[in-house]
């Protein structure tokens, strides 16, 4: 090595110290790498597979480019019905959960004593400790023809509900299962509203309802939208609940994807799986506009 005049050898850390972006890059590289390889690569693989076909005889993937899977999705009415049903049920579940979660979260955040609040927190989170399947099967016992619901109605002298194995029961079970994922972000948003805002509203003559509509709801909206991301996307991707409590017309996108994967129709499954990805993409763009990401 050639002598370098008056230059002194510095410890290597100096390079990082002089260029802060370098240490930032070193810190971020592993998580970003994992993100790119696990998340993005999986999505890209999904899109590419959707453009292939499968040999009907051997079940092997044929790597020729084709839009057949998408044109089938586009041309067959049944897949439109399934997509509309999936988005419809996801929207219904989201609205139901928002309506149930808001008063509950409001009580927890602003009215309950710390002790009651802790108890309510445990009650909300407790179902998450039990297996998903156990909870769905429990609902089957309630909704069955001879289940708890019809038994109760009969004792009250009312006609039977007749909702076992229908889309009504799918809606009820989804709403129950995803409720904690709505309550928590709404609670977080409500808790953050300074009490002084509400006092200011009262000082200006705002009664309870006016304060709720003009102060609390707008400030809680990002929390509701954040919660709706969970309830909407979780419903959009689920196939177990419709399989267990659904009826003859309860197929969601997830069920078709599951059946297709099981029957070696991977390209078609990938094509249909891009639909929820697109729907969620649009949904997240709208959610960002409404400030949901600040509430997470």
């Amino acid at each position, binding site marked *: 090595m050639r002598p370098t005049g008056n230059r002194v050898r510095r410890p290597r850390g100096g390079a990082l110290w002089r260029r802060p972006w370098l240490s930032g890059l070193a810190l971020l590289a592993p998580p970003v790498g994992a993100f790119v390889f696990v998340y993005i690569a999986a999505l890209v693989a999904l899109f590419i597979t959707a453009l292939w076909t499968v040999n*009907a*005889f*051997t*079940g*092997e993937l044929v790597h020729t480019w084709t839009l057949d899977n998408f044109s089938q999705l586009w041309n*067959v009415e*049944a*897949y439109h*019905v*399934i997509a509309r049903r999936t988005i419809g049920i996801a929207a219904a579940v989201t609205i139901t959960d928002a309506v149930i979660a808001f008063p509950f979260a409001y009580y927890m955040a602003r009215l309950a004593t710390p002790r009651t609040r802790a108890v309510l927190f445990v009650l909300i989170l407790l179902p998450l400790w039990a297996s998903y399947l156990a909870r769905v099967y429990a609902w*089957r016992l309630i909704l*069955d*023809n*001879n*289940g708890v619901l019809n038994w109760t109605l009969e004792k009250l002298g009312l006609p039977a509900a007749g909702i*076992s*194995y229908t889309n009504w029961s799918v809606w009820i079970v989804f709403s129950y299962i995803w409720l904690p994922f709505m309550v928590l972000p709404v609670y977080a948003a409500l808790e953050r509203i300074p009490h002084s805002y509400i006092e200011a509203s009262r000082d200006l003559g705002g009664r309870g309802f006016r304060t709720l509509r003009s102060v609390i709801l707008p400030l809680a909206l990002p929390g509701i939208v954040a919660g709706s991301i969970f309830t909407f996307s979780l419903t959009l991707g689920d196939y177990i609940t419709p*399989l*267990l409590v*659904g*009826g*003859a*017309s309860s*197929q969601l996108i997830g069920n*078709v994807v599951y*059946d*297709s*994967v*099981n*029957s*070696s*129709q991977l390209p078609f499954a990938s094509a249909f799986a891009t639909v929820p990805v697109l729907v969620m993409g649009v949904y997240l763009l709208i959610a960002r506009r409404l400030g949901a990401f600040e509430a997470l």
Partner: protein
Amino acid sequence: MKKGLWAAIAVFAAVLAFPAAGVSKAEGGTLNMIAWEGYLQPQWVNPFEKATGCQIHPKYAGSSDEMVTLMRSGGGNQYDMVSASGDASLRLIYGKDVQAVDPSKVPDFKNFGKAFQSPPNNTVNGKHYGISLQWGPNTLLYNTKLVKPAPTSWSVIYSSKYKGKITVPDNPIQIADAALYLMKTNSALKIKDPYELTQSQFNAVIDLLKHQKPLVKKYWALASDEIGLFKNGDAVVGASWPYQTNTLEAAGAPVKDLIPREGATGWLDTWMVSSHTKNLDCAYKWLAYVSTPKVQAEQAVYFGETPVNSKACPIMNKLAKGSCAQYHANAPLKYFKQIYFWKTPIAQCGWSTQSNCMDYTKWQQAWTQLKG
């Protein structure tokens, strides 16, 4: 502290090493098997492992489609054997996922009923791609209190009399049940085989199923689903297996099953050997073992199906009184004639030289679209 840590690591390593040492002792090798749940019970698997030294690693699958997908996973190197049903076996044969076997290495093969030695769902051009195992009919199940008069025809699951109280399996091969019904009731369609349908025949069958759909309460995916539906009164009539009838009868439910006058479809399961297996020796030992009368009887009584080995009958009766007659293990040839065993629909129509029949991919698509 450091000493404690090393001790912990040593103990952990020993724990890890111990079962490995246990496996390496066995000289027979291992068999990774895909099977229906209930097909690899310790009752008959443990004696086999002890006698041969071949270790069995079961992987249970929920559907024929899943079995085919699993057999092909990882280039076909993952699994050595599969208990394929008739609607999966041809797919595995034509996909070259399984290899031809030599029945002369299975001593009990000669005791099999004639219909089960070379059935079309596992024997192609005289080559045996596996050894038949057990079979059963797809029966018509009904609630004796609520369905009156007692049905004698499949028409009961296509008529609106029991609207919203009907259940049928969620399986593309169910299209064959409707095809069989039309084959016997609508001669104008000229259906010769419920698994070999031309486009126009297929359309007529799908029309019947579309007409049936609003009458259906639920397409059941698991046997336990159908049992629940009948127990709770959500369904009173439906297509079923003998297993559900037995379970429901044991629970005191008022049910009965029958093979209606049009006949019925049925399943015939076959143990098949992967083309890529490294344990052919163990595989043959297993084929010979499961074909023996004792194991045949044990599995038949446990699962509620019929053995292919005709010598299993007396042992079945010893295990459960009257079970041989209950599962028709001693039934005359006339009984089999009314059962159309599952086979994978392929484009080549068996009854003509044409290849314009609807293949299984079409059946799957039609089924998914039908359920809508």
